[in-house]
């Protein structure tokens, strides 16, 4: 039983990290209806800049992280100017394709700048084992979960309690109505992509710390995808809950199911969970129910 709990909690905490990446997707999709394939590249991009500035230039992290944040805001601005503005009113699929372009452009740019060798990214989150009673937990996972929780609380506060948050919610609900009350969409896109950039920075720190900064980090996107399917593309709580379900499901399956079917199931099991749920709720756990008038 203790072992089961250990695996479960370990899985839940890993799920928090999946949720973190999914969160970036949800923020942009909710506001603009764009499925931003480049979110994973933004995570790698941010991680490479933080790792590069620290390891190659010797900057301390308390300097490298804010500088990276400013760079991400710059990236958001450039994306709005160069990609989103000319594409306005195009089909969602075209915007999706252009985010694939952004994906490769961001990685390419970061590699030109920093080269493709892998780096460490250790901002000092302790990774010691912690015993809770008899249960063994990793402090790294716990602190990560706390960081993500703080981030989510911050985002919720921003969205519910500030005027800019209200503007973002308005745009998410109805673009035309938002414009008619004088909201300038181009500003909103920069803000939304900047927030997604902030989430990418946090994800970069967390994932970079766990995996090291290397191109394989973009694979976390493939962990975020089933989380998105399961949670629904438009729900922040959905991303969190789905992250937890997938994390826990994956960890339990690996331990209890893995030996039976010969292991190596972690790369695809998340998708099985997501698909099983989708049979029951095709719009995702918290997604908006799609009702079509005929």
């Amino acid at each position, binding site marked *: 039983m203790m072992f089961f709990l250990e695996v479960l909690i370990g899985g839940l905490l890993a799920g928090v990290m999946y949720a973190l990446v999914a969160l970036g997707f949800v923020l942009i999709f909710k506001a603009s209806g764009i499925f931003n394939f480049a979110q994973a590249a933004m995570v790698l991009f941010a991680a490479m800049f933080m790792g590069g500035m620290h390891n190659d230039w010797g900057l301390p992290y308390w300097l490298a992280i804010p500088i990276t944040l400013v760079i991400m805001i710059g990236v958001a601005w450039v994306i709005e100017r160069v990609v989103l503005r000319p594409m306005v009113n195009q089909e969602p699929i075209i915007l999706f394709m252009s985010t694939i372009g952004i994906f490769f452009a961001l990685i390419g740019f970061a590699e030109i700048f920093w080269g493709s060798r892998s780096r460490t990214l250790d901002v000092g989150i302790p990774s010691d084992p912690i015993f809770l009673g008899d249960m063994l937990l990793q402090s790294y996972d716990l602190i990560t979960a706390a960081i993500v929780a703080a981030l989510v609380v911050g985002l919720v506060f*921003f969205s519910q*309690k*500030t*005027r*800019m948050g*209200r*503007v973002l*919610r*308005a745009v*998410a*609900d*109805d673009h*035309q*109505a*938002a*414009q*008619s*009350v*004088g*909201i*300038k*969409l181009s500003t909103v896109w920069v*803000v939304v992509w900047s927030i997604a950039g902030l989430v990418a920075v946090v994800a970069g720190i967390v994932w970079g710390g766990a995996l090291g900064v290397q191109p394989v980090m973009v694979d976390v996107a493939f962990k975020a995808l089933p989380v998105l399917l399961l949670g629904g593309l438009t729900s922040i709580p959905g991303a969190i809950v789905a992250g937890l379900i997938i994390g826990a499901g994956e960890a339990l399956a690996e331990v209890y199911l893995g030996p039976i079917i010969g292991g190596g199931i972690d790369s695809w099991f998340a998708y099985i969970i997501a698909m099983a749920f989708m049979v029951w709720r095709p719009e995702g756990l918290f997604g908006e129910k799609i009702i079509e008038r005929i």
Partner: protein
Amino acid sequence: MVATVSDLTPREQESEVLLKVENVELRFGGVRALHDVGFEIRKGQIFSIIGPNGAGKSSMLNCINGFYHPTSGTLTYKGQPRKHMRPYVTASQGIARTFQNIALFKGMSTLDNIMTGRHLKTKASLLENAFWFGRARREELEHRRFCEEIIDFLNLQHVRKTPVGTLPYGLQKRVELGRALAAEPELLLLDEPMAGMNLEEKQDMARFILDVNDEYGTTICLIEHDIGVVMDLSDRIVVLDHGEKIGEGTPREVSNDPKVIEAYLGVQEQESA
């Protein structure tokens, strides 16, 4: 029939022209939505655009608020001719609107929806807002007071905190009007404010429109299908059919115009017969 100054009541003659529309043409590829449309809306008027379905009424409204840009022709607002003006710019110049198919922020409460209408009245910077600093907070409270007045005015107190997506249709229309009023517009565009309403709701809405015009002196440009309502409310009416202006004048003049009767009122009478 072409409008002449003599058609206007003395009060209207004195007031200045707020919006002048001249020779507006609007094409979507080969489809001609508007052809050579022109009229003047004067300050303080309740001005109506009527016409059968597909006459180009909503297209005209969309040109005025900047969703569409006329292929040719000019719009002169407050004496300034304009070209390719975006909706957020026209909003900042005092044009607010409602939509034919309600366009509210459905997940947000009535109060939040109306507060969004105050967007352009807010001066605190983005950063101040993001962190809810002093000035942003003071401003927010002022706006809140203003919006509560609108809520009282429109009798929406009981649904102040309700997500508008769950409200009945008539109330949603009212919230939408409230959001437009929150911007303190000089020109208020109403696209079928009474569509789909029952008689009682229509009467309420008509009263609100008259009150807005009276109390705030807001100029109103209105599209409406219910001819009775239009005749009662309007100072002046322009009639469109197939994208062209076929008549203009006071309600009485328009209802006696044979071309209008043929194109629009006639059809109406046959239907009700």
